[in-house]
């Protein structure tokens, strides 16, 4: 790719001249069994156009009916975000022509969202320690997802230059919740981190609620990032909207890039255009999309085919009773129970290993061992394979079994790693891999002693050195024994046996 033509100001200079204002619009696809307004399966994937019916295809005469579970999930999301729940609200039609919706409108909520006025506290790591920010929530509303377009013909596979498009409506009508923040001001140079921390916390909250699998890589959590810059002492300026930023890291990068880009525009005497921009994972840049100079006319009006939603306070309170522990509270509790440092906790969180470690400990594994496996070996392998830690085929039960075998001396750490290698390669469970690969500690003393004697015979000067006081020379013999036993001996035990054999105190 050629060098970018987009001018940027250095981040620190941009922050010295301007105050960034953020707004985040996050879409969460609910993990319901059926769609928002019809009984079609909401399962991810499926052959194209097999999860469709007259309602989600917008066929004449079809009538939508609201999914009760989607309403409950939305209310629980609103409550967990400290929102007020509307006692009466309606759906609205958002009219537009685009083939991703066969009805030519999307059922959404307009001026009567189900949940309003909440907040989410997030923590950002700074040089002076952790700092808490309160992100205020404007609204949480319900709508339906759209179909998936594939652009065909042309040679780029992109919408520009395409000859025509193909549409799969399996996703059309999946319950979609939009969470909109109020303007986030005052974050200054921490703005990119606050944006990332907010989306992370929101994701963990949704996961704890069990309302969505919140996979940014699969599109069940999507984020639009709005950024504007205010010259010091002035209210905010014109904002850009960067659409569908689909990883946590990209959220942070998109905010940073927009701050640097807009600062360059403004300080060069230009003006920021209100427009949609697209984020590019490869370059970390945003490029201009549709201009919003002319506000779109969606002609919202109350959806006549759906009656209003009016949650009773009894129902809302009953749902409040089902809220799980808030992730930040849970983190603090686990950190205290496991007695680990802020840094160790941060490592677990960054590795996305908290749930995995907790369930491993629940299987009886020591907390230090559980943390070591997930943030060390398994994180390395997951990164190598480019998959999420949770997608590794290793389970808490596997780790518990391996740790049992280590404890009773049948496996060493090194052998344990080979066992997991086998488990991850699909060779079976722990015992099957141990069996098939013949991974057992060579433990009986006579075998080890034979190997020690052989090694001493091969390196006749070493015994003398050790007996003469150079105990560190034992390493050469231990190494030879480990090699002879193909690494399947316990090195510490070999060393002890060797010193005993030579009559030397370790």
């Amino acid at each position: 790719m050629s060098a970018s033509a987009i001018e940027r100001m250095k981040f620190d200079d941009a922050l010295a001249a301007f105050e960034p204002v953020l707004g985040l619009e996050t879409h969460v696809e609910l993990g319901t069994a059926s769609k928002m307004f019809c009984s079609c399966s909401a399962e991810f994937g499926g052959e194209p156009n097999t999860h469709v019916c007259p309602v989600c295809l917008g066929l004449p005469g079809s009538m939508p009916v609201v999914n009760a579970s989607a309403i409950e999930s939305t209310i629980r999301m609103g409550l967990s975000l400290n929102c007020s729940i509307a006692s009466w609200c309606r759906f609205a039609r958002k009219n537009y022509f685009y083939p991703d919706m066969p009805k030519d409108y999307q059922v959404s909520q307009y001026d009567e969202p189900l949940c309003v006025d909440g907040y989410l506290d997030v923590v950002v790591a700074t040089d002076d320690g952790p700092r808490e920010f309160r992100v205020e929530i404007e609204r949480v509303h319900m709508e339906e997802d759209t179909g998936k377009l594939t652009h065909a013909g042309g040679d780029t596979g992109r919408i520009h230059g395409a000859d025509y498009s193909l549409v799969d409506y399996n996703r059309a009508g999946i319950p979609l919740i939009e969470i909109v923040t109020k303007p986030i001001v005052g974050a200054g140079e921490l703005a990119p981190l606050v944006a990332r921390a907010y989306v992370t916390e929101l994701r963990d909250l949704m996961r704890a609620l069990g309302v969505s699998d919140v996979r940014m890589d699969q599109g069940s959590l999507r984020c639009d990032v709005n950024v504007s810059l205010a010259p010091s002492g002035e209210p905010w300026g014109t904002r850009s909207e960067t659409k569908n930023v689909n990883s946590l890291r990209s959220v942070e990068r998109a905010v940073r890039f927009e701050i640097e880009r807009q600062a360059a525009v403004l300080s060069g005497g230009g003006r920021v255009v209100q427009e949609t921009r697209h984020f590019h994972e490869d370059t970390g840049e945003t490029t201009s999309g549709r201009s919003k100079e002319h506000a779109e006319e969606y002609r919202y009006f109350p959806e006549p085919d759906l009656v209003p939603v009016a949650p009773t306070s009894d129902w809302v309170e009953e749902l409040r009773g089902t809220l799980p522990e808030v992730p930040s509270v849970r983190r603090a509790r686990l950190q205290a129970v496991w007695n680990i440092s802020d840094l160790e906790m941060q490592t677990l969180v960054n590795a996305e290993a908290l749930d995995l470690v907790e369930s491993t400990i629940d299987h009886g594994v020591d907390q230090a061992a559980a943390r070591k496996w997930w943030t060390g070996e398994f994180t390395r392998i997951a990164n190598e394979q480019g998959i999420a830690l949770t997608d590794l085929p290793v389970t808490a039960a596997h780790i518990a079994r391996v740790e049992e075998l280590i404890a009773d001396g049948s496996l060493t750490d090194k052998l344990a790693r080979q066992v997991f290698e086998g488990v991850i390669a699909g060779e079976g469970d722990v015992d099957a891999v141990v069996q098939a690969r013949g991974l057992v500690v060579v433990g009986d003393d006579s075998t080890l002693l034979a190997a020690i004697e052989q090694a001493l015979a091969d390196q006749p000067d070493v015994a003398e050195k050790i007996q003469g006081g150079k105990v560190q020379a034992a390493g050469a013999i231990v190494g030879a024994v480990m090699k002879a036993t193909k690494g399947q001996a316990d090195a510490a035990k070999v060393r002890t046996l060797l010193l005993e054999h030579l009559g030397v105190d370790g």
Partner: protein
Amino acid sequence: MANITREQVQHLAHLARLELTEEETAHYTDQLSAIVEAVEHVSEVAADDIPPTSHPVPMTNVFREDVARPGLDRADVQAGAPSWEDDRFRVPRILDED
């Protein structure tokens, strides 16, 4: 007559992706004016203390249990599609508009 203008009709036609001839535009301008005028009679009766009605039947909370059921057979879906390719609806190029 309510004063619906030609420009309003043209604007609406564009939003609805309808191409109108001059005659049609004139025709709909008259028709829409008459319709709006008829509807305006409602506000002569409904005072400020009567909220606008969006739903004629006072009913709320009509829900369905979250149970997935099979939808249409794809052959039937395809039969209703004007154009079809690779198990998907084929639609004309999108960005030529505006």
